[in-house]
């Protein structure tokens, strides 16, 4: 087994591992979740139902899962990466076949006690797989075209499935998240230049084909992009989300209207106030100070993750930690850009704050991997 190559005599064993967890990250994550509960309580008009209480239960469940994942040596997870990827892929296909339709997209499998979004699962298993792949790959072959093509295909299969649902937000997250892991793994910058160049080409193509029979995106996705480009064009229709979101956010001012005093969310002017647009409520009630604080918390998580990754001499552990951090970053960066009107509305939740079981569980489990890597790092 590969751990033999490390000086693992200092690696803690048994319950002592708990002491060696990356506690700052756990505290930060709990704080962010706490902010989430606070906001869910507020948008429900000062009530634990229907959102805050279930969210707390899922948080508890997620924390248990995180600890469980953290206790298991990271190399086990590395070896399981391919299996996890395959399971996620099968679930994605299952969703294609039996999934429930919500908001114009097939995204869920109803497991009875919760609705599972395989695309959420894929976000993390893909990071595991790409990290494991580059751990396995001879370091000198990293930028070899054939060996670059392999992970690209591994990424594009789930991306294609996700786009069929259709879920543009997740597709972008999958591509960018994996791309960041590949970037960290040392793939030549020319590939990235090429990809970015062709992305621009594809975006042009997407717009050029609009209105024809073989247009790439659904009409509602085109409309969302239109709306993003000019929200005032249809302030009560498609532009409503962004316009109202900016109004709520902007009306917060420096220090906000005060907790539970946000008029825009309480009076339902804000759409999806408990999910994708929860940040606007926070910004309205706590103002610029509140928004910056949350942003700061997120960046502290990133900082601790990056530090952990740089301290870790295990290639898989480092890459995986960076990948998880990247995915986390993408979540809040895309979400905040969206609610602040600098990105189209693509349906990405604010990590650990937005109401939603799958996302919360997946993120906490992902940080479980990060904890496992931290605990079992070679010393």
């Amino acid at each position: 087994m590969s751990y033999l190559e490390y000086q693992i005599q200092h690696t803690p064993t048994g319950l002592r591992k708990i002491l060696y967890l990356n506690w700052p990250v756990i505290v930060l994550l709990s704080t962010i979740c706490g902010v989430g509960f606070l906001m869910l309580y507020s948008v429900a008009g000062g009530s634990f139902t229907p959102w805050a209480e279930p969210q707390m239960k899922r948080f508890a469940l997620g924390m248990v899962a995180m600890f469980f994942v953290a206790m298991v040596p990271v190399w086990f997870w590395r070896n399981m990466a391919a299996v996890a990827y395959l399971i996620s892929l099968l679930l994605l296909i299952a969703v294609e076949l039996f999934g429930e339709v919500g908001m114009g997209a097939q995204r869920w499998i109803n497991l009875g006690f919760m609705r599972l979004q395989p695309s959420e699962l894929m976000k993390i298993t893909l990071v595991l797989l790409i990290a494991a792949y580059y751990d396995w790959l001879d370091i000198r072959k990293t930028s070899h075209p054939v060996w670059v093509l392999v992970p690209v295909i591994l990424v594009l299969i789930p991306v294609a499935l996700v786009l069929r649902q259709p879920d543009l937000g997740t597709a972008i997250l999958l591509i960018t998240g994996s791309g960041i892991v590949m970037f960290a793994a040392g793939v030549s910058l020319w590939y990235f230049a090429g990809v970015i160049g062709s992305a621009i080409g594809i975006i042009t193509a997407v717009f050029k084909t609009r209105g024809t029979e073989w247009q790439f995106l659904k009409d509602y996705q085109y409309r969302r992009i239109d709306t993003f480009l000019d929200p005032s064009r249809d302030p009560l229709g498609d532009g409503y989300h962004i316009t109202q979101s900016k109004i709520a956010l902007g009306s917060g001012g420096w220090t906000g209207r005060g907790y539970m005093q946000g008029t825009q969310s309480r009076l339902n002017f804000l759409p999806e106030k408990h999910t994708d647009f929860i940040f606007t409520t926070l910004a309205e009630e706590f103002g610029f100070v509140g928004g910056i604080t949350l942003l700061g918390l997120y960046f502290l998580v990133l900082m601790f993750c990056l530090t952990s990754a740089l301290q870790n001499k295990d290639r898989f552990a480092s890459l995986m930690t960076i990948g998880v951090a990247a995915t986390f970053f993408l979540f809040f960066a895309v979400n905040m850009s969206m609610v602040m009107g600098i990105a189209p509305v693509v349906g990405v939740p604010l990590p650990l704050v937005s109401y939603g079981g799958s996302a919360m569980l997946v993120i906490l489990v992902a940080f479980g991997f990060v904890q496992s890597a931290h605990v079992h790092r070679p010393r």
Partner: protein
Amino acid sequence: MRRPPRDNEESTRGITRRSLLLGTAWLAFGGGLAARMRYLQVDQADQYRLLADENRIKDRLIAPARGLIWDRNGIPLATNEQNYRVVMVREDAGDPSEALEKLSKLIPMDDAARAKALKAVMDRAPHVPVAVADRLTWEEVSAIAVNGPALPGITPEVGLSRNYPAADDLCHVVGYVGPVSDYDLSRIDDKDPLLQIPKFQIGKSGAENKLELQLRGTAGNVRNEVNAGGRVIRELDRREGNPGANVQLTIDAPLQNFIQARLAGESASAVVIDVETGDLLACGSVPTFDPNKFVRGISTADYGELTGNPLNPLQGKAVQGAYPPGSTFKMVTALAALDAGLIDTEETVRCGGYVEVGGRRFHCWKHSGHGHMNLNLSLRNSCDVYYYDLAERVGIERISRMSRRLGLGERYDLPMSAVSSGLAPDKAWKLERRGAEWVIGDSLNASIGQGFVLASPLQLAVMTARLATGRAIVPRLVKSVNSTEVPLLDSPSLELNENHLRAVRQGMYSVSNNRRGTAFASRITEDGKRLGGKTGTSQVSNNRVNNRNVPWEQRDHALFVGFAPFDAPKYAVSVVVEHGGGGSKAAAPVARDILLHAMYGGYPPLAAYPAAARGNAQRMQDDLELRDFDALRNESSRA
């Protein structure tokens, strides 16, 4: 995977380098987000705060109660009646059509009304209350209230709607209200937000229209916080408006009622003025219409009936009508000549039945001629030739000036619709409006109130009041506003020679008290209440011989002006019966009855009538159905 240590080091170095790059990129992006947040929340905060308040705060107007209108005795003429209606909130009503079905078992509601109500309910947002039935009786409302539990989402409500208790009597004076229309909004320059309330009631005609600004009051305001669906969450602020001013008119409602009843069946009008104050005591015009029908939304059939009626019920003839005054104008011509010093009261003119001027014969109404006529006789007999002669000497300019002094050709500023200015023609007028020179024949026609001269019954009453008092009486309609008396208008002396005035009045006395006067049959026999007046018969068509064998619309207008009591004038009256025939037969008896009614404050004793007229007077008193104003007053004081 076992990896050579060198590879491991290289891997770590590579990852470190790339991670630092990544971290820098993330930080940069985070900085961008922070900057954007700052821009929205700090730099643009004021603007977004404003937009947010616009989002959540909705102002709603509270319509003020419209001012009431009373007559001079405090009898209500326009009131606000409690109007019971039923409103339905769709989201509480379950199945709206089923709810209406149930409702129609309690109150009269046919299929058409139900379909209309259902559409109204479905057209609005689910939480908006929509009126589904209107003008319910107290019993019906009680039935709904009792069945409340079985009728979710349906509640009785009380609103105010305009009511005219005296119904037809004052339709042309008080007018009526109606919902504000786009046409109204385009026509009037009024920024009052109340007008934006759908179906807000504004005055459409008469005093309701002309006194609109006083009667309307000012809007109150409720500030509500609403949610995105427009539902009211809570009231933030409430400012009550001011109700409209209560207006008391100078009209005497029982007298007005008598006049309308007395004139009924004709196309006629009559005006009574208090000669001491200028108060318009009555301003009758028939036929009439029920203004309440307009408030409730008049049916097309009813409206068509009104517009199609040749007697023109929609027109308030007392102020809107302009008629050739005929012989009632002769006092003007006489005074013009006396004032100019061209005749004296005893000078005679011989009437041979006609005069020849400019090669045309101008006939007296009595073709055989009256013989020698002085002022008194000329009025008593209504001799035309006497006035032709005066006209030749006086000229139209002096006649025109005198007619204006006596109140003709002037538009009085009264709060009524389409007040006519009549016409006191002179040479300049003819040149300008007809493009022709004034000829002597025009003067002759004008001297007996024919030709171009036009006067409304109101103007004739004013003229009579001025003759009776020698003062420039100006009519007024509004007695008090919110219990504050409207000051009387100035009525300076007309600066006419009192002897001349007395002679003219004496002539008018002879008209109705001399055995040979044209209105002798319509005299008042009660001493101290005698009447002075003048008959008038104004030609409508030039080629008629007598009034019996011509179509109605070509018959002469019958006029009478008069005042009483002769010795101490109090009331001036004018009566115009369109196409009524001769003034002495069709108008004088009406004027006499009106004056008697005014002087006695009700039906006079029969002794006030000459013996020959008592039978008719008795019949009239028996037949006319007058309104019970005591009941009306009690009802309103109870409300």
